[in-house]
């Protein structure tokens, strides 16, 4: 099957491995990630203002594209997913916003939130199925203890994101089990790494990322996995705890035998 794919700015630049292995692994599992033509940057962070219209139009264009193709809209970057999903929710539930966005965009058929927006992890769990991943795993990562780092954007606000229980999630732990490794559950897995404050307040980000890394390491993890380039950057820039951070798709590629050395 084919799905509409929104890679986002970072997957075209600093997070090329997140993108490359997402495509390769999906293809191996029977799903083609079809890149949206002329997609535009989501803006990285959702504007919460109810009267913010222009900053959400690029997301509405991507949503409309997927609707016209009658496909799921899939992204891997946690931030893109969060922005697309929250914009879609506003298109469904805020008629004033939807009216203004449609007036501006003037599509042949108005967009009203019809597209189903899913994260790559939901594609693996709900469309492909973790059982199929298990069947296709040629290098089970048996000896690895892996800490799933959810951060903020995959889970919250849960009434909109609706991927998992925001306080006790399991989708990434189930993914880790599917590729034969052992998940490590730790308290800071859904707390913030410091996010975009990294541009101007390194001290704040270092504290927040340090808490996450320490928490993972103290609970016995060898490795942290994430879907978010900014989380990965912030965690890696914290030197206080020595634990590697890799993308979910790199780990999946390793398990499926698709990782290039």
């Amino acid at each position: 099957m084919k799905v509409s794919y929104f890679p986002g700015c970072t997957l075209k630049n600093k997070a090329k491995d997140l993108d490359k292995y997402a495509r390769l692994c999906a293809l191996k599992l029977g799903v083609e990630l079809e890149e949206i033509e002329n997609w535009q940057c989501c803006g990285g962070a959702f504007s919460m203002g109810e009267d913010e219209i222009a900053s959400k139009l690029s997301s509405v264009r991507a949503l409309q594209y997927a609707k016209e193709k009658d496909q799921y809209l899939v992204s891997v970057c946690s931030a893109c997913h969060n922005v697309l999903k929250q914009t879609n929710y506003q298109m469904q539930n805020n008629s004033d916003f939807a009216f203004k966005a449609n007036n501006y965009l003037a599509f042949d058929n108005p967009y009203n939130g019809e597209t189903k927006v899913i994260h790559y992890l939901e594609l693996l769990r709900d469309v492909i199925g973790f059982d199929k991943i298990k069947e296709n795993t040629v290098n089970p990562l048996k000896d690895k203890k892996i800490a799933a780092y959810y951060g903020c954007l995959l889970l919250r606000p849960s009434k909109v994101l609706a991927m998992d229980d925001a306080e006790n999630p399991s989708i990434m732990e189930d993914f880790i089990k599917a590729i034969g490794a052992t998940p490590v559950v730790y308290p800071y897995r859904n707390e913030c790494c410091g996010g975009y404050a990294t541009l101007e307040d390194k001290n704040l980000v270092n504290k927040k990322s340090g808490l996450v890394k320490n928490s993972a390491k103290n609970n016995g993890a060898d490795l942290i996995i994430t879907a978010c380039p900014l989380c990965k950057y912030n965690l890696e820039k914290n030197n206080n705890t020595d634990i590697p951070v890799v993308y979910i798709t790199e780990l999946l590629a390793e398990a499926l035998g698709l990782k290039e050395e």
Partner: protein
Amino acid sequence: MDKLKEQILRTSGVNTLKCMRCGKCSGTCPSYDEMEYHPHQFVYMVEKGEIEPLMKSKSLYKCLSCFACVERCPRNVEPAKIVEAVRLMVIRQQGENHLTANDIPDLLDEDMPQQAIVSAFRKYSK
């Protein structure tokens, strides 16, 4: 009603009267230690119309938009939306951007993901 308060309530869509001042938003806020005014104070100061001190405070730029307060508020007040609305009130004014393109080159290193830059612009500038 005060014009500033009216605009903030409209932009945020928040009903500040739902707050019962339990402080859970501030208790869960990752930036609590860095803030002069904390999330629960944003909510009740907007309710009381004390908006100018909030507009002048650096606390506006410490919110990480992590949605922890939105998720964990037992009354569904969504404090982050109030913080965002006050920040928008400031940066929508001519010449009040907190971050400009000229600031960027000095803030970069070779690993910095594009996501950090676009997110910061979305939150700090118009």
